[in-house]
């Protein structure tokens, strides 16, 4: 990928806007000037502390600048003062909705540096939990997207259905949000008794929930009117900004690290479909996530069928020291491509960790994407990009 971005495509400006500008030039008194509107850092639509400085002409956005950093917690620096097992506690809190998925690439990096491989059962359980956290994240999105366009009820359904998944994660790991369950070389515990059957039952409710959302939100005419052809990301612009995950697949780019990346976890051993949508608008992003939720539930059922028996922990030394080296490990997280560049100098903790989080890159497209849209569409686009503030600021 080239280091410089390609030139921005010319933005189509509504002719009405030209007329307005021409009027303003002729008759100076009519020039009302632009209004600067501060969306955030405390604004209900940014679910966190993203601040958007929006220049408005009437209700039309002339320019938008995201201001980030209100939630910066310095995790990259903090990792330098922790041992490897302690780091997972920190990175749990990057993308707090799918914390289990955050642990996987880091543990992967450490295991590769040490030359350890987790036993197959541990790999399968990791895959199951990663997909469960994907479902939990997306169920919340499916409901919350309704809230962003003004329907209150789906948000509650989203929270209600996510609860089943969180209960499962809690039953297996002991933590609802921050499991901290991965160990270098395997997992902390085996699955509890009866968990597999519970999961099978819960997957049924996930399918039901997806049907509900397809019916209630995606099938609603007003929702379609609000999201269709709003915030279109063309594939080449998306890739040039580093947009990844479902946002990029909604633009028609058939790219999924679970299938196309370096093989990790149990993904090479199961069948799954990578969903794409050609439109690239907000509706496409909703639709793709809806399909991926179903796909994830199917994957969980497959994994449960294939779950091997055996140990869940490989042989690891009592004090973990990672040999010198550098490594890049990346995975397909619910929000997109998540990666860690780990540099080790042979100590008990990493020398330097660079975290590549999906939301940071996904949000970087906002100034390009928000030019020329209306204020309500700003919210639709923010909602459909689906970022987590912890994932942006780290």
């Amino acid at each position, binding site marked *: 990928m080239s280091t410089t971005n390609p030139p921005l495509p010319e933005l189509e400006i509504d002719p009405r806007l030209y007329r307005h500008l021409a009027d303003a030039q002729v008759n100076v008194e009519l020039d009302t000037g632009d209004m600067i509107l501060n969306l955030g850092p405390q604004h209900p639509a940014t679910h966190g502390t993203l601040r958007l400085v929006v220049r408005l002409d009437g209700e039309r956005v002339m320019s938008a600048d995201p201001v980030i950093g209100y939630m910066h917690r310095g995790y990259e620096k903090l990792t330098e003062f922790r041992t490897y097992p302690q780091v997972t506690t920190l990175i749990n809190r990057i993308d707090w909705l799918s914390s289990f998925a955050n642990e996987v690439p880091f543990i992967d990096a450490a295991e590769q540096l040490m030359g350890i491989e987790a036993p197959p059962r541990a790999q399968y359980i990791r895959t199951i939990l990663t997909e469960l956290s994907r479902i939990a994240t997306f169920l919340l999105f499916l409901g919350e997207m309704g809230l962003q366009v003004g329907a209150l009820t789906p948000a509650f359904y989203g929270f209600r259905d996510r609860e089943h998944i969180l209960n499962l994660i809690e039953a297996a790991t002991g933590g609802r949000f921050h499991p901290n369950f991965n160990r270098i070389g395997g997992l902390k515990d085996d699955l509890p008794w009866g968990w597999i059957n519970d999961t099978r039952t819960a997957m049924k409710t996930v399918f039901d929930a997806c049907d509900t959302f397809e019916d209630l939100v995606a099938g609603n005419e*007003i929702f379609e009117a609000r999201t269709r052809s709003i915030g279109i990301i063309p594939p080449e612009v998306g890739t040039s900004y580093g947009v990844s995950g479902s946002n990029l697949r909604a633009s028609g780019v058939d790219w999924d690290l679970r299938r196309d990346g370096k093989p990790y976890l149990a993904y090479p051993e199961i069948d799954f479909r990578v969903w794409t949508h050609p439109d690239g608008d907000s509706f496409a992003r909703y639709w793709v996530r809806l399909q991926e939720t179903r796909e994830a539930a199917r994957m969980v059922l497959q994994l449960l069928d294939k779950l091997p028996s055996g140990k869940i922990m490989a042989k690891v030394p009592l004090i973990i020291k990672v040999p010198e080296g550098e490594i890049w490990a990346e995975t397909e997280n619910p929000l997109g491509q998540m990666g860690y560049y780990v540099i080790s100098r042979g100590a008990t903790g990493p020398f330097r960790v660079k975290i590549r989080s999906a939301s940071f890159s996904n949000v970087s497209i906002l100034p390009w994407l928000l030019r020329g849209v*209306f*204020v309500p569409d700003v919210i639709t686009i923010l909602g459909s990009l689906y970022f987590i503030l912890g994932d942006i600021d780290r």
Partner: protein
Amino acid sequence: MLAIDIGWGTTLAIKTLVILMLVPTGALILGYTFLLKVMSHMQSRLGPMDPGGFHGWFQLIGDGIKFIQKEDLTPAEADRRVFAFAPAVVVISTFLVFLVIPAGPDIVVKDLDVGVFYALAVSSLSVIGVLMAGWASANKFALLGALRAAAQLIAYELPLLLAVVGVVVQAGTMSLQGIVSAQSHNSIFGWNGIGFPLVLTQVVGFVLFLIASQAELTQTPFDMPVAESELVAGYMVEYTGFRFLFFFIGEFGTAFAFAAISATLFLGGWALPASWGISVGVMRFLGPGVLFAKIMGVAFLMFWVRFTYPRLREDQLQALAWKFLIPIGLANILLTGTLKVAF
């Protein structure tokens, strides 16, 4: 008007008191029933269950007490007088609507000859209060919300009126009492078992009226003026405490008023069919109950939509009003007039 002559002064005092009580009570009833209970049920939650014992009936009153205790904040750059007066304007327009709504054979403050016209005219006074609030708050979100509200209320005033014209043509009067008695006494091709509620012939008008009143009330799917995910709370964003409570009462009181108007215009109001032979004396007591039941029915429809649909965008809202609702309303009037002449 009352059976016993107690002098106009006392009558006036009683009427004023009843109207003053009616708006907050109606707002409370709608707020409790729909906002707290029906909405919770639709969203598979319980809603408040503890305050007061039975299903948390005390919750809204408790909320009211909380609002009264809150500090009354005025932004430093606000236009103080306008800011303070705006909520009152909103509530006053709600009070004025109730003056003409009949709840029984003679339970009405003043049965105007142009009752329908009056009710719809004063109900749109609230937009002045909304604009005042938005402008005086010295807040950009509030200003955007107020301008949206103004544009929206002006656009939807027209379909609202057009929807009512059909009823007026069929009933042959603009007095609300006249419309009620017409629906009670008329018959459907000679069969007078249920009178002739105008919703039977004015289905289009009824639906138009509900849609337009939804927009007038700034409820979902037309709640852009208060869109909480975009404008936080629109024109109400700077209001706290008692003044915010005023807006709340105004919102639900107006919902009650619009439900009452549509119940009166389309569902027969307080009256039961004349053929059932219930005497006027009994209807004095029964009327308010009948009207209340119909109001709750209409309000359920309104709030059901509110809790289900997402929000339209401002331009889509305007397109809906001017491209669809108004032409349909005009066609409805044309059809009604033609049939009225034909039969």
